[in-house]
């Protein structure tokens, strides 16, 4: 399969940048999942959708808004009523899910090309994200695994906490380069490493 | 009352300024008048002034809930222009512009109308064509408008980012040279003094709490200072139209009330001479004679009667002003305030007889109200005096919506927050 070209390529500068004082405050990476899939259940069929996700991917989602689960190579979370986002390093998850989700439960939309996945991690990850989003990123308010939809001005973003100090951001591909650049600027004062 | 002049200033200075008289009387309300105007803002006061001056109707009371000019006439960004696209708008605002040009003399009160020009920046060729279409419409209707290319814009407004590297490069600007700014409070005070000198009663701290009716007909008002009867009652309370009309039993109107914030920076030595508007967002800015930059942007975009704005809009406006003038980032915001706007369904005003017999309605100014002050009062006075609209406000009816004869300058349809 022909590999996807990243929208970040020209601005992708691996290495350390900004004010590094004994280690980078954050690390920025593009996780480039093979599959990014949106699932939308009809009202009343949310449970069935979660079951379908489990059967197709093995990821079992807890109930409740924003509930999610993150594993090494795949993750999923709810981001709107009856709607879920699934990311898998492997390609083809969309097809698998399309098989598992009947039209009576809901619909599957493949966004593997349409969203760019950016990971920010490190001791200052919360601090840097707080510059962009009016979201309380503290662990009690936003536990590991959970996800949400928010926006930084014109850039719509879905965010999942995939670790105590690690967040995966999904932004529209066309905005990814601008957003990445802004993320780098915001990280300068704490020092950042691009990997 | 004494004429104002340089001589009067000198004479009074010699007597230690002890002999100045009040700019307007503070009479108690009479039991009845020929005409009552509800609302002692710019439009209400100018209506009273022109009723007296143009139609000889002087047995008039202006009822103001608070102090004169406490509404939007004292809460705007003082811009006066007539750079409109649609024929109905051009006709009306051009008439207003002509009144502005002689207003200080007419009122014997310096309203400091300064024709320093209003420049609308365009940032794409498509937007340029749009603006030029508007400018051409103005010229063909006898108004004034010029097109400045990028270089000319740069010379006309130093400090403006006219570089090609700007996020939204300036491709040109539509200039209305006769447009400019005026001292907003002075407009209210000048009209009040002018009306007072012609015998009109300006009654402050007089809140209308109900309407007097005979059957359908409005025959006066109930106020916190008692009943006042009148042959005709004009309502000019933009910002509170919904509240006042409710007292007359009218619940629904093609109007939403929204708050518009305005801002002033600390006082600076002259930085910008004309009014400049940013086309890649929503921002207009000028500099007052006291040196403060006066500017504003869009609405907060939700219904409100509270004169308080919210933070996101403040941030939006400051982002745009810094994009337009990068040198202003170190200038500081000194004051902000909010005014409540009558946002109509097509972005244009309503000046009409009715909707009830004996009643006349002047409303829906969105944020075009200040520059309209003279013509609004002039046309409303005409409509009240003659019981029919003048040509300049004939289109500003209430039924134009149901008839689909819309005056939609922005092409946004029935979404008031976007006008």
């Amino acid at each position, binding site marked *: 399969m022909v590999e996807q070209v990243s929208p970040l390529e020209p601005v992708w500068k691996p290495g350390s940048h900004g004010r590094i004082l004994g280690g980078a405050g954050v690390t920025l990476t593009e996780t480039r999942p093979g599959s990014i899939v949106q699932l939308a259940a009809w009202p009343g069929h949310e449970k069935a959708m979660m079951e379908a996700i489990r059967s197709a991917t093995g990821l079992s989602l807890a109930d409740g808004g924003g509930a999610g689960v993150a594993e090494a190579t795949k993750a999923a979370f709810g981001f*709107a009523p009856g709607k879920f986002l699934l990311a898998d390093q492997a390609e083809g998850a969309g097809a698998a899910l399309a098989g598992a989700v009947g039209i009576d439960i809901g619909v599957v939309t493949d966004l593997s090309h349409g969203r760019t996945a950016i990971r920010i991690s490190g001791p200052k990850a919360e601090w840097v994200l707080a510059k962009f989003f*009016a979201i309380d990123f503290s662990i009690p308010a936003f536990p590991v695994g959970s996800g949400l939809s928010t*926006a930084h001005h014109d850039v*719509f973003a879905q965010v999942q906490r995939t670790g105590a100090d690690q967040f995966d951001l999904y932004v529209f591909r066309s905005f990814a380069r601008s957003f990445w650049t802004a993320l780098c600027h915001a990280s300068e004062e704490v020092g950042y490493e691009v990997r | 009352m004494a004429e104002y002049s340089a001589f009067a200033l000198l004479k009074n200075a010699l007597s230690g300024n002890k002999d100045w008289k009040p700019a307007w009387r503070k009479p108690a309300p009479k039991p009845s008048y020929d005409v009552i105007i509800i609302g002692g803002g710019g439009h209400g006061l100018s209506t009273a002034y022109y009723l007296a001056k143009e139609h000889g109707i002087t047995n008039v009371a202006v009822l103001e809930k608070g102090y004169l000019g406490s509404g939007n006439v004292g809460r705007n960004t003082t811009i006066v222009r007539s750079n409109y696209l649609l024929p109905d708008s051009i006709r009306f605002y051009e008439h207003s512009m002509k009144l502005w040009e002689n207003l200080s003399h007419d009122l014997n009160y310096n309203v400091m109308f300064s024709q320093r020009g209003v420049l609308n920046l365009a940032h794409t060729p498509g937007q340029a064509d749009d603006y030029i279409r508007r400018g051409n419409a103005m010229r063909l209707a006898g108004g004034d408008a010029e097109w400045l290319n990028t270089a000319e814009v740069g010379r006309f407004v130093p400090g403006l980012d006219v570089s090609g590297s700007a996020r939204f490069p300036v491709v040109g600007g539509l200039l209305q040279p006769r447009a400019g700014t005026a001292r907003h409070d002075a407009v209210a005070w000048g009209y009040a003094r002018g009306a007072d000198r012609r015998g009109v009663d300006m009654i402050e701290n007089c809140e209308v709490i109900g309407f007097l009716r005979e059957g359908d007909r409005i025959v006066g008002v109930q106020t916190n200072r008692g009943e006042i009867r009148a042959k005709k009652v004009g309502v000019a309370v933009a910002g509170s139209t919904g509240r006042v009309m409710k007292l007359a039993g009218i619940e629904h109107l093609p109007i939403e*009330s929204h708050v518009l914030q305005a801002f002033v920076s600390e006082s600076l030595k002259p930085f910008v001479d004309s009014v400049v508007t940013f086309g890649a967002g929503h921002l207009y800015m000028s500099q007052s004679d006291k040196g403060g930059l006066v500017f504003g942007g869009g609405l907060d975009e939700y*219904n409100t009667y509270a004169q308080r704005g*919210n933070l*996101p809009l403040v941030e939006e406006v400051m982002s745009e002003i810094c994009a337009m003038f990068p040198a202003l980032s170190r200038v500081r915001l000194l004051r902000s305030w909010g005014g409540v706007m009558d946002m109509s*369904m097509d972005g244009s005003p309503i000046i009409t007889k009715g909707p009830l017999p004996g009643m006349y309605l002047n409303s829906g100014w969105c944020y075009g109200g200040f520059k309209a002050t003279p013509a609004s009062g002039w046309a409303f006075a005409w409509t009240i005096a003659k019981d029919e609209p003048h040509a300049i406000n004939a289109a500003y009816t209430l039924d134009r*919506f149901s008839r689909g004869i819309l005056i939609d300058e922005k092409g946004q349809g029935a979404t008031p927050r976007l006008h």
Partner: protein
Amino acid sequence: MIINCPYCGPRDLVEFTYQGDGNRTRPQPASQDYPAWNAYIYDRLNPAGDHNEIWQHSGGCRSHLAVVRNTLTHEIKSVEFVRDHGHRKSDGHRKTGAAS
């Protein structure tokens, strides 16, 4: 201003889009009741006080919310999903409906 989205929790004003007066009733699509259409599109209640309005959480879950908010104090009394709110109005035009 902060709106407590039933799905996302409390979020800043900046994430929401005002969608106007929630008191209006859209006539059935096939309706020829002109005044009703006119009222739906152009008439506003615009109260000074509690107001039923519709907001979209456009910068979040994109749900439409039925909000009761005071237009004098901006105090928000209640927030719920429009679709749970019975905001369906009198529009009987369902997929089974014969209106079309």
